[in-house]
């Protein structure tokens, strides 16, 4: 088991902060790439860490990141369900200007791409969006995704197959080449 988790469970106060620092970027990136905008991602990460800390005693085996991923994904899913479609679409469009594209044209192009990706991702179901984002954007393997989402590798392959097909269909309808 992760030594930091062990220290947290034994009551070491500093370990809580260290565990948070270690995994914050991962949790935030997960929330963002599953479709939340900056503000929602922060809220989701906060909820996820509070849940994780509260239930750390029940975390028995496996990797802490896998466990945390599921908590974040559940939180994202709950938030997406609560949002109206147009709010959901606004997520990546509201992306901050931290992209490393320096020129105005570059920013506009990036925004267009993000808008297209977000519009299309918003049309996929939760499972397909998750598989697609983890494979295409995070670059994870089928096995890694299966472990993260708690599904069989074959199931992930199937979800990915249909997700890609739908992604391309939606892109063509938008008149863009994905």
């Amino acid at each position: 088991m992760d030594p930091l988790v062990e220290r947290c469970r034994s009551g070491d106060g500093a370990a809580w902060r260290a565990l948070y620092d270690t995994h914050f970027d991962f949790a935030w990136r997960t929330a963002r790439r599953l479709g939340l905008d900056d503000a929602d991602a922060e809220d989701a990460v906060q909820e996820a860490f509070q849940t994780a800390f509260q239930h750390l005693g029940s975390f028995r085996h496996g990797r802490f990141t896998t466990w945390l991923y599921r908590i974040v994904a559940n939180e994202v899913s709950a938030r997406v369900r609560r949002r109206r479609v147009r709010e959901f679409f606004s997520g990546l469009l509201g992306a901050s200007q931290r992209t490393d594209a320096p020129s105005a044209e570059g920013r506009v192009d990036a925004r267009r791409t993000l808008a297209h990706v977000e519009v299309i991702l918003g049309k996929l179901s939760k499972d397909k969006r998750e598989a697609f984002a983890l494979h295409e954007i995070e670059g994870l393997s089928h096995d890694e995704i299966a472990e993260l989402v708690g599904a069989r590798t074959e199931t992930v392959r199937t979800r990915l197959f249909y997700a890609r097909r739908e992604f391309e269909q939606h892109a063509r309808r938008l008149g863009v080449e994905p």
Partner: protein
Amino acid sequence: MTAAWKDTVRAATQTPPVGAKERVWRAMQQPRRRVRAELVLVPMALAAVLLVLLRPEPQTFHGTNDVISLREGHATWNPGANEVTLERGVLEASVWGTPALRVRVKGRLIETTGAVLLVRTAGESVSIVPVRGTLLVDGQLMEATEATRREAGPTSIEALEPRDAAARRAAQALEAKQWEAADRALDEVASAGTLGAEAALLQKGELELRTLADPKRALTTFEAAAARFPQGNLAQERELSSLEAEFALARFEAVATRAANFLTRFPDSERATDVRRLQVRALLAVGRRAEACQFAKDFAEFAADCR
């Protein structure tokens, strides 16, 4: 997905905003705030009651996918129950999709999920004319198949006009989630050129935009609706949906221009906030940040863009 697209998305979502980690950590140190349902629901219920009580003679009501117009007389609208109570006069309603509409009149309850109807009072008698579709009156199915008369004490209820097959098919297809069939049936309803045509066209466009994810087709439908009903009751709703379709097609310049026109024409519209939000997003998408941020002050979601 091309490598360029992947790189763009990864770059934009790689690193949290500056200060996010500390912000979230500090927020976590605060006790969790739980929203107590009664603190929200009770004031909302009181506000709804006050709204109904203080509104003396409402003339027109707009609800989701519904148009309820009071031609004469007096009626009150309870949005929580999606229910209108007709005290006297003539009420015209065209209802498509969900939620169901309930009309209370002279102690009777009429329920419908997809009908066009006229309700008229004359003294103690009530006349209901379902122009299309079916209704439940006091829990009993009432079909507009042929002229029907029901006597019930002092109140008589009349159902006139032949059944409209397309409207029935549309309602059934929507219920069965057969979207393409619903789309075709709604088209037929709209072509009939009667009371519910405008609402049917709008619902058809909404179906195409959101459920069938085909914004091009939706836009064609909204344009057809605009040509047929330029001053229709649903003109503002139609314009907002058209803007959303244009946005989904990534026509950001067009969205920005049309949104500005809308806000000039209808500055006090109930749809103005949604249109403004779309306008800001479109302006940001085409790099007109200064203009966007000028309008973005009321929206927390654009804080990062306009910092």
